[in-house]
């Protein structure tokens, strides 16, 4: 198991290096001169040239890329924002934690409601409960999150005045509307996934056995069926979480929630290259770690998968012996 984790972690290195090179190259070919954006259109040619030298933009692409990579991966320094001059490594934890809170609140809402909805649909297959849940799920998938955000703002901020429409001054309450608007799609997908994987297991022999030996229906559903239906649901939880980490840009923009998304999107608009690159690297690492975590969760939920890891290790050990 430990060996598997190590292998996966090592595997992340080339991927993150690739992401760095890709994003660096894409930002380099972006139209718009960063020096001009920083200094404004009134700056003289001499000022612009001086700024470009200061930013290192007059050097060849490979030299800049090499310097950036050595700064990031050897000195663990993401550099400073060109616009504000603030260290990026110092800004990211604060921003990332807000995006994390948003993602976690969203996940709790989506799966806290989606799983029970899916179970209800599966246990009442082809009855009205099933139809209602699946119609709700279809609508949830269809509604664009940024539009839902606007509708929720109209209802809860403008008409009712219950929740703040922007900023994070109100503490956790400020995260409710963003999380709600973000969770509709995830909730719908969670419900659909739960329904279909519950339907897959619910006719299995061990469910009949459990019922036959007199286990209460409630326990059959939660302990025997749900536990076995959990794998695809966990996969979905993981991919949703990964998407929420990197995809909260639009929601963060609408609610002026200063998380990673808003940080990166402002940087893209201002051609603040180091911030975009740093943000992309951190998001890619977070995403890869989230994916690793899901794979480990599989093993925790399903002993069969855990056994596979163990047997793979044995297989490797044999190979090593054979080679020696």
């Amino acid at each position, binding site marked *: 198991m430990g060996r598997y984790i190590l292998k996966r972690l090592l595997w992340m290195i080339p991927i993150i290096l*690739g992401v760095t090179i*890709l994003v660096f190259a894409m930002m380099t*070919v972006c139209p718009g001169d960063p020096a001009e954006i920083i200094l404004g259109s009134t700056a003289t040619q001499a000022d612009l040239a001086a700024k470009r030298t200061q930013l290192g933009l007059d050097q060849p692409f490979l030299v800049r890329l090499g310097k950036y990579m050595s700064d990031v991966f050897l000195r663990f320094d993401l550099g400073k924002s060109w616009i504000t001059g603030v260290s990026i490594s110092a800004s990211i934890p604060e921003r990332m934690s807000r995006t994390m809170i948003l993602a976690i609140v969203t996940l709790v809402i989506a799966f806290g409601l989606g799983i029970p909805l899916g179970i209800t649909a599966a246990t009442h297959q082809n009855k009205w409960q099933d139809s209602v849940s699946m119609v709700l799920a279809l609508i949830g998938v269809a509604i664009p999150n940024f*539009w839902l955000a606007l509708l929720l703002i109209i209802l809860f901020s403008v008409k009712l005045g219950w929740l703040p429409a922007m900023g994070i001054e109100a503490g956790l309450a400020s995260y409710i509307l963003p999380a709600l608007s973000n969770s509709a799609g995830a909730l719908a997908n969670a419900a659909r996934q739960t329904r279909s994987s519950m339907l897959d297991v619910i006719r299995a022999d061990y469910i009949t056995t459990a019922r036959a030996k007199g286990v209460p229906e409630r326990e059959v559903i939660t302990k025997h069926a749900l536990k076995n239906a959990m794998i695809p649901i966990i996969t979905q939880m993981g991919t949703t979480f990964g998407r929420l980490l*990197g995809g909260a840009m639009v929601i963060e*923009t609408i609610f002026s929630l200063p998380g990673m998304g808003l940080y990166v999107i402002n940087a893209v608009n201002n051609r603040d290259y180091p911030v975009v690159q740093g943000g992309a690297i951190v*998001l890619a690492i977070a995403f890869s770690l989230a994916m690793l975590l899901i794979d480990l969760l599989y093993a925790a939920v399903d002993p069969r998968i855990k056994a596979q890891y163990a047997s793979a290790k044995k297989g490797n050990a044999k190979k090593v012996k054979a080679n020696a």
Partner: protein
Amino acid sequence: MLKPVKKKSEFARVMKQLAKNKLAILGLIILLAEIILCAGAPLFTKYGVAEMDYMSFMDPTPSAEHIFGCDSMGFDIYTRVLYGGRYSITIGIAAIIISACIGIVIGSVAGYFGGQVDNVIMRLLDVIQAIPGMLLMIVISAMLGPGFVNTILALSVSSIPGMARMLRANMMKERGNEYIEASQSINCSKPRIIFIHLLPNCISPIIVQATMGVAQTITLAASLSFIGLGVQPPTPEWGAMLSASRAYIRQYPHMVIFPGLAIAVTVLALNLLGDGLRDALDPKLKN
């Protein structure tokens, strides 16, 4: 002599299966109606797309004259939703066609040849997929600049890896079959084996994915336009319309309700159709 008959019946079977699914048919009808309304927009509205109604500045809310009301510029929202559909639906379909074509080629090559070729392609896709999709689209749109065609390109690049992976997995499953060995033994060229023999047997999940993908892409295009990176106002793309009306949300909520509703209905219809297609193509449900 049996062969062509059998081929025809497969398509007919899928269509028959699809026709049984009421929800899928509903989706198809909504979609066709929308395409007719948008393509023939001038026939269904008496206003021009850039025709200002100065009287509407007093009261832009929906009325008998303007059933969806007017926006902040005095344009009729119903008219602009129809014209906007041309942009939004075209973006969705075009982006998915581009990404499906590229994804199919990449996925077939990786899946058929395997080995080192597969390894290199998959690692490249790993890198692209490690960048969050929205961020990738934003950076590509920034790189290409805003606009209609560039939005299509940005959206298609980010959905290539998913398509390629799906096709690769199917190819690997399918290439071990005897009919492939047979076509290799009669010296078929590799492109012929891949595209004539293998591809038709691996394509059905891609069709489902593409149908759903169009829906997703329409939403993503709208969100890109909404944050100012995609299609720019005053072009009546649905997301751009939402973005332009956002400032008036407090006084005139109708300005943001109708364009969003148009997106939601289109996505719903496409998802219904996609679900139906998946059921119709799913070999597990074949009787």
